[in-house]
């Protein structure tokens, strides 16, 4: 039901806003310098059919690079139920009205035109990894040699909440979309002296710095527009999970007196009627309650038997992102749904997708995956309306543990938030989305 409502909302928005995609400039550029599919080389010796399920950061990237690197012999069909993607990256800036949600829409036209990717705007009903087929709700059956599943995340229901509460009363807004808009409206309806309560689930969750970034931006907006209002951050984890130096400083100094940060606060339940959040560290009342639930692989992964790690995530071999489920060797899972040592976030989903595309291209050419892939995670986090910090890490394959490990000395965070970082953040976002969707 939630999903249908969401799709319907997207449908409305699609009519109004999709032609004005924020990548219009990139599309113009790519089209002026190339005819359709000109970015795709001829036959590279790699031949096969790939179906990609999910058109988010991982799915769009893997579709693009399978064609860009695999060439004309690699046929790619992208299945996505929504006609466009709404970025979660930068969506906290919708809350303080620095961006509109429409500016975070990214369509699939450039992927079709520039790389000859077939896009099926439909939902997946079932997959058969052995018979190598995907059934779509609309009745189509797609054959594949390799299937890439990139479904992102789904959310647990917090105790005390009913199905549909996230869409109406207590938006988690942990996926860019209608809930983002709703949460922004709720924040603007707050009065001076009222409290915004947010909860952070135990790791791993999508976008490790994201909740702390949100706390900072909401605090920044409230202190300018609703003096005396407060932000309470109830973190189920024992401490700040990313950019600890940056966010501790932001909480203690930059937003001093506005943010109360409570670690080890695991949710017991939420009292809807009294707007109370009960945790292991006490109970809080909030004029606005923003409960970010614990997360797991997008439901298609569990529904098709690909979830085999902690009952939540899909195990993969990080040389190729091939499923570790016996019998599902034709299936690869990338992005937030997969269980790896890498963070769950859009930038690194793009990097994982490239490793996967390279591996599938090699497999189609009778070779094996690159034995020493490197990925990188990077993100900029706004701390106020005009300053940002950054966080980055480079990961290399460790044969001993068969995992991706941070390369020594190759991880770090900004020394301090700055205006320069804020400008770089905008460049980063624009480039990342173009590398993914154009």
């Amino acid at each position, binding site marked *: 039901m939630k999903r249908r409502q969401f799709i319907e909302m997207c449908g409305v928005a699609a009519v109004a806003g999709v032609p004005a995609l924020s990548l219009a400039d990139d599309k113009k550029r790519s089209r002026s310098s190339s005819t359709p599919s000109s970015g795709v*080389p001829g036959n590279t010796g790699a031949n096969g059919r790939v179906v990609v399920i999910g058109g988010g950061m991982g799915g769009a990237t893997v579709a693009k690079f399978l064609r860009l690197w695999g060439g004309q012999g690699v046929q790619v069909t992208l299945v996505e139920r929504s006609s466009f993607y709404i970025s979660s990256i930068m969506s906290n800036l919708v809350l303080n009205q620095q961006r509109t949600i429409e500016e975070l829409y990214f369509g699939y036209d450039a992927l079709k035109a520039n790389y000859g990717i077939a896009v099926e705007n439909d939902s997946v009903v079932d997959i058969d990894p052995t018979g190598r087929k995907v059934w779509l709700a609309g009745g189509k059956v797609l054959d594949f040699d390799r299937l890439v599943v990139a479904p992102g995340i789904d959310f647990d229901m917090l105790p005390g909440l009913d199905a549909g509460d996230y869409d109406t009363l207590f938006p988690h807004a942990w996926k860019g979309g209608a809930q983002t808009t709703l949460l922004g409206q709720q924040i603007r309806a707050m009065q001076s002296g009222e409290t915004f309560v947010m909860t952070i689930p135990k790791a791993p969750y999508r976008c490790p710095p994201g909740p702390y970034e949100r706390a900072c931006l909401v605090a920044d907006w409230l202190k300018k527009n609703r003096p005396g209002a407060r932000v309470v951050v109830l973190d189920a984890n024992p401490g700040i999970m990313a950019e600890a130096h940056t966010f501790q400083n932001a909480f203690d100094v930059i937003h001093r007196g506005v943010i109360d940060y409570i670690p080890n606060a695991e949710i017991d339940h939420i009292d809807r009627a009294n707007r109370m959040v009960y945790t292991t560290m006490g109970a809080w009342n909030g004029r606005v309650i923003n409960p970010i639930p614990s997360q797991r692989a997008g439901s298609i992964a569990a529904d098709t038997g690909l979830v085999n790690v902690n009952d939540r995530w899909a195990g993969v071999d990080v040389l190729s992102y091939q499923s570790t489920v016996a019998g599902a060797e034709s299936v690869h899972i990338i992005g937030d749904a997969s269980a790896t040592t890498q963070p769950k976030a859009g930038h690194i989903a793009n990097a994982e997708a490239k490793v996967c595309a390279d591996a599938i291209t090699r497999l189609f050419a*009778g070779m094996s995956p690159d034995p020493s892939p490197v990925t990188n995670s990077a993100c900029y986090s706004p701390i106020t309306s005009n300053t940002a910090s950054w966080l980055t890490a480079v990961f290399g394959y460790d044969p001993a543990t068969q995992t991706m490990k941070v390369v020594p000395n190759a991880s770090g965070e900004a020394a301090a938030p700055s205006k320069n970082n804020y400008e770089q953040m905008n460049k980063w976002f624009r480039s990342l989305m173009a590398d993914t969707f154009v």
Partner: protein
Amino acid sequence: MNGLTWKAGLLAVGVLCATTAAFAEGRDDDSEGASESGYTVSSRLEKKVRTSSKQDKSSLAAASTSSSAGTSAGSAIVGHPGRLLASNCFQCHGTDGRNGGFDSLAGESSREIIGELTEMRSKYEDDKGIMRVHAFGYSDEQLRLLADYFANVGR
């Protein structure tokens, strides 16, 4: 995929490593500014393919593809051993190092790319802080491979 295919795959790792090594060794004969010296990706790859012998058929295919596609698209450098490494730069510097929000890398000499990254390791500058972290993420050999990719990708 069955176990047999994986075994075949493992054999192919050896081939790939051999190709990579040949490519890297070949680097020494070449001037640092490969793209500036004017020889094309395809001729370069063909040369590597010749030196790396019959083993790597996909690179042969790649070389012929790239000569027909020219250097207008980075994708033409099929099978370049620095390609996947270089793709870590695309998110900020644009696909193939073109049209990104940050410095363009496409067609830059490998000497310049390696020089800048090496300098970042030894010297801290606040506005290059994020790149300094990345500079530590790659071995000298990996830097050489990814820089070679951008040097040959065409502007």
